[in-house]
């Protein structure tokens, strides 16, 4: 590593000339190779949020139930009974294209660590996935690898994968999105944070040994893909869920004692970011002696050890008098435990290796003088109104086509590869309800969990699309009876240096913020993934939202399955909005028009009404109306309950397939009472049909048997993948 450190090398490391100048000013000399590596990863987009910070700051992050908002490893909210939910969503997009299995698997591993590092036992995993055109062979390979990777890691580590979403669009052909979310449960008074404290206290490394895998992963995640992406395979890490399982148990066992002062996982930028952030947050210095670092390979340099993204590693600051007790716990679990340094009063990070000081950087300017960009933005032009679109195929054919299309086809092929029941608390499994329901072991209380985003809306109108993503998550929780509490966001966008992309980002944040305020649904954690474009092709703007809600009694949760004799009541206003609808794309072959508008006051009123009816016991099943519109929602409820529906409402293709927002279908036994309550609350509601028979019956249309509908709905994935 006798490479000369200069501006050209800094550029290779992803630092601009201006940023390198800033490094020189801070250091007052030419940095060492290792020091340049530290600056480059800490100031990468992935770690510094340099393009997004100015916008993220505008999101609402507070509510009486929020214990820790953004800034910690994960968000923490009070869920009652003295418990806290700890949760976050995070992307692993770039690695998942290069190496789908390992990219997705380590994505799951990384987000699990963000959650258990705060003292929470992980109880649920979810994901939000976007893939390219199913007609391409590469898409099939990526889907197969990502699904196997998520299952391979989650199943082995023993955390149920209970929910998620999958979309397809050619804009993701060269850049799929893999966003993984973990939810954990902790004692609300025993949350572990990362701020180091106590000069002289030992800095302890636990978990897997360090190898050369993933070096500069954070930098890779901060650039666009060109043709050479295959050559970046060495920057993808390999996960070991077995070690992660041991690490979870060992850390939780240690967390039950009073040994830990601070703890952080080694995620992106590995030992560099964990040590710099822990010391920086605690306003102390830190000295590391890499001679003591557990190593998997020989002859590793300080640079390699500091930048390695080997998985399943944690860094802790311990009380010195508890060090040996902690060592014994990790010995029990057969995990490495090494004191690799101590806290100092110098305000510097000092890295020694073989008796040589390889890095000595002042921490305050490394953090405070990190680049912050107000990048230029340009507004996405408003789409012109759609105008009338003729129905060329009829309701029956459109329903069967939509049920079979990749974006609406049954996801059972995917879910069936994820262990969703481990833990014995999964009340509503994937597909059973609008949000997954997971009871808390030993309590009647349950969590309602969902991930949502409609990227085609975001592309057409980023502000409305950002708003809709938040609203959809809120609605999905509401449709189970859950009280929505907070969200985590995964902002997946293309190159922020292009004003139209930065404009999408800013607009999406505006829309999200408005929805968060109107719905009392703050952002408590999140992740930004930029430069999602390959050879100049940007992804659709995708602000994926992970939503968390709570039910005081898990038994009150409702799913989608209807039963004979129930009346279906449509809540909300239907005008028949076809702009950006799946009907328009799949049947008319057009991706046009503005997406459906949202009235946040109506959303709130309709949703609060629906939740109230569910909790009063008046509702047997509920499903929100979203992708594909009303008839798709009804068909999904019929398939879930294996019960037909006789619909008495009449309307055109806009009525049946329009995607007007703020709507729910309720299955009730006393329709008159529900309709009266709706009228009293000023909520639009109408009875639209009865659950009965063997198929879907609409006025003037040949009945569609459940068998035919099910065959259409279940065809896509098995036919494509097997």
């Amino acid at each position, binding site marked *: 590593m006798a490479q000369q450190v200069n501006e050209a090398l800094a550029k290779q490391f992803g630092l601009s000339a201006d940023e390198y100048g800033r490094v020189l000013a801070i250091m007052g000399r030419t940095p060492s190779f290792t020091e340049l590596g530290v600056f480059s990863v800490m100031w990468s987009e992935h770690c510094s949020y340099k393009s997004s910070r100015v916008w993220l700051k505008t999101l609402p992050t507070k509510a009486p139930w929020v214990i820790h908002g953004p800034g910690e490893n994960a968000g923490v909210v009070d869920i009652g009974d003295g418990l806290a939910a700890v949760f976050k969503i995070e992307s692993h997009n770039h690695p998942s294209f290069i190496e789908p299995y390992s990219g997705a698997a380590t994505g799951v591993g990384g987000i699990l660590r963000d959650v258990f590092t705060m003292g929470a036992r992980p109880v649920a995993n979810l994901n939000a996935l976007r893939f390219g055109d199913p007609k391409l062979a590469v898409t099939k390979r990526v889907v197969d690898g990502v699904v196997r990777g998520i299952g391979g890691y989650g199943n*082995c580590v023993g955390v149920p994968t209970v929910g998620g979403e999958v979309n397809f669009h050619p804009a993701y052909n060269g850049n799929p999105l893999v966003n993984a979310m973990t939810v954990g449960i902790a004692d609300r008074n025993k949350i572990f944070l990362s701020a180091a404290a106590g000069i002289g206290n030992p800095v302890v490394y636990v978990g897997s040994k360090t190898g050369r895998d993933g070096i500069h992963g954070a930098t890779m995640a901060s650039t666009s893909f060109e043709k050479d992406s295959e050559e970046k395979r060495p920057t993808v890490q390999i996960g070991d869920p077995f070690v992660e*399982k041991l690490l979870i148990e060992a850390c939780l066992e240690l967390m039950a004692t009073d040994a830990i002062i601070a703890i952080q996982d080694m995620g992106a930028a590995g030992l560099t970011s964990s040590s710099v952030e822990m010391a920086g947050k605690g306003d102390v210095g830190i000295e590391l002696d890499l001679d003591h670092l557990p190593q998997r390979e020989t002859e590793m340099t300080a640079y390699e050890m500091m930048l390695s993204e080997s998985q399943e590693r944690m860094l802790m600051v311990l009380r010195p008098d508890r060090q040996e007790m902690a060592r014994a716990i990790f010995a029990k679990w057969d995990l490495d435990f090494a004191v690799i340094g101590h806290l100092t009063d110098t305000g510097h990070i000092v890295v020694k290796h073989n008796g040589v000081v390889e890095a000595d950087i002042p921490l305050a300017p490394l953090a405070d003088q990190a680049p912050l960009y107000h990048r230029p933005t340009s507004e996405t032009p408003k789409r012109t109104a759609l105008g009338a679109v003729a129905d060329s195929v009829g309701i029956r054919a459109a329903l069967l086509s939509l049920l079979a299309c990749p974006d609406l086809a049954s996801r059972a092929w995917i879910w069936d590869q994820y262990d969703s029941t481990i833990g014995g608390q999964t009340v509503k499994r994937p597909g059973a309800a609008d949000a997954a329901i997971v*009871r808390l072991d030993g309590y009647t209380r349950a969590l309602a969990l969902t991930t949502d985003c409609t990227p085609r809306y975001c592309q057409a109108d980023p502000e409305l699309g950002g708003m809709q993503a938040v609203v959809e998550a809120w609605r999905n929780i509401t449709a189970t009876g859950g009280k929505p509490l907070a969200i985590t966001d995964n902002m997946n966008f293309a190159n922020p240096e292009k004003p139209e992309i930065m404009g999408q980002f800013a607009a999406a944040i505006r829309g999200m913020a408005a929805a968060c305020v109107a719905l009392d649904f703050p952002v408590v954690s999140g992740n930004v993934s930029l430069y999602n474009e390959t050879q100049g092709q940007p992804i659709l703007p995708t602000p994926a939202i992970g939503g968390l809600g709570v039910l005081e009694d898990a038994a009150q949760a409702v799913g989608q399955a209807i039963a004979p004799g129930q009346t279906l009541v449509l809540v909300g206003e239907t005008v028949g909005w076809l702009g950006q609808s799946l009907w328009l794309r799949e049947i008319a072959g057009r991706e046009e028009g503005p997406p459906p508008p949202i009235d946040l006051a109506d959303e709130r009123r309709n949703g609060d009404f629906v939740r109230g009816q569910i909790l009063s016991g008046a509702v047997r099943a509920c499903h929100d109306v979203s992708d594909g519109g009303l008839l798709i929602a009804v068909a999904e409820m019929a398939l879930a309950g294996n019960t037909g529906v006789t619909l008495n409402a009449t309307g055109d293709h806009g009525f049946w397939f329009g995607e007007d927002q703020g709507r729910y279908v309720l299955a009730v036994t006393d329709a008159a009472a529900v309709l009266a309550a709706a009228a009293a609350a000023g909520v639009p509601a109408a009875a639209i049909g009865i659950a009965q028979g063997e198929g879907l019956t609409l006025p003037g249309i040949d009945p569609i048997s459940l068998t035919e509908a099910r065959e259409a709905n279940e065809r896509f994935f098995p036919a494509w993948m097997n």
Partner: protein
Amino acid sequence: MKAGIVVFPGINRERDMAIALHASTGRAPAMLWHKNADLTGLDLVVIPGGFSYGDYLRCGAMAAQSPAMAAIRAHVARGGYLLGVCNGFQILTEAGLLPGALLRNAGLRFLSMDCHLRVERADTAFTNGYRAGEVFRAPMAHGDGNYFADDATLDRLEGENLVALRYATAEGVVTPEANFNGAARNIAGILSPSLRVMGLMPHPEDLVDPLMGGTDGKPLFDALAALEVA
């Protein structure tokens, strides 16, 4: 009835098993870390599901060679009951406590779904909560649940009436379609000749609460709650 759950590193369904045993027996089973598993005084030992040692070698192969197996064999030798579920079943076959092996699922994918099990004999300590021929539902969650043995062994198992459970339709018909993982002769669970060791792939412990979708698995644990080693 005193039960203990042996936990090898990578085992991950130990808490599910503890919940089911606790619900049926009224007391929490002992959780026994493999390094210091003392099985004295236990009526029932359970090896639950998971990925012992990561299952990076053949599933269960590492745990089967673990020092803790000596205590487990001694428990069986003195007449104790032993239940292996999923990875526990794989470990018992690798250890030679039950015959056969669990191969990769026929479709080569991990399968997480409910299956239906037909009770082949109901006169054992494990199955006497059901009637012979009764069908119950249980979640399955495994990548390697495809039971295999040579024909002579399968014939002997059937001849000696040691097949406990078979994959079947909800109506109790043993069909290829109901046999998701491709197991030989639809075998989901088998017994030792002493009838004191049982291994099965599915997870009745995850279906003991109506809120989780049913209580089909509960009779198995209710039956175990009643057993006592003579």
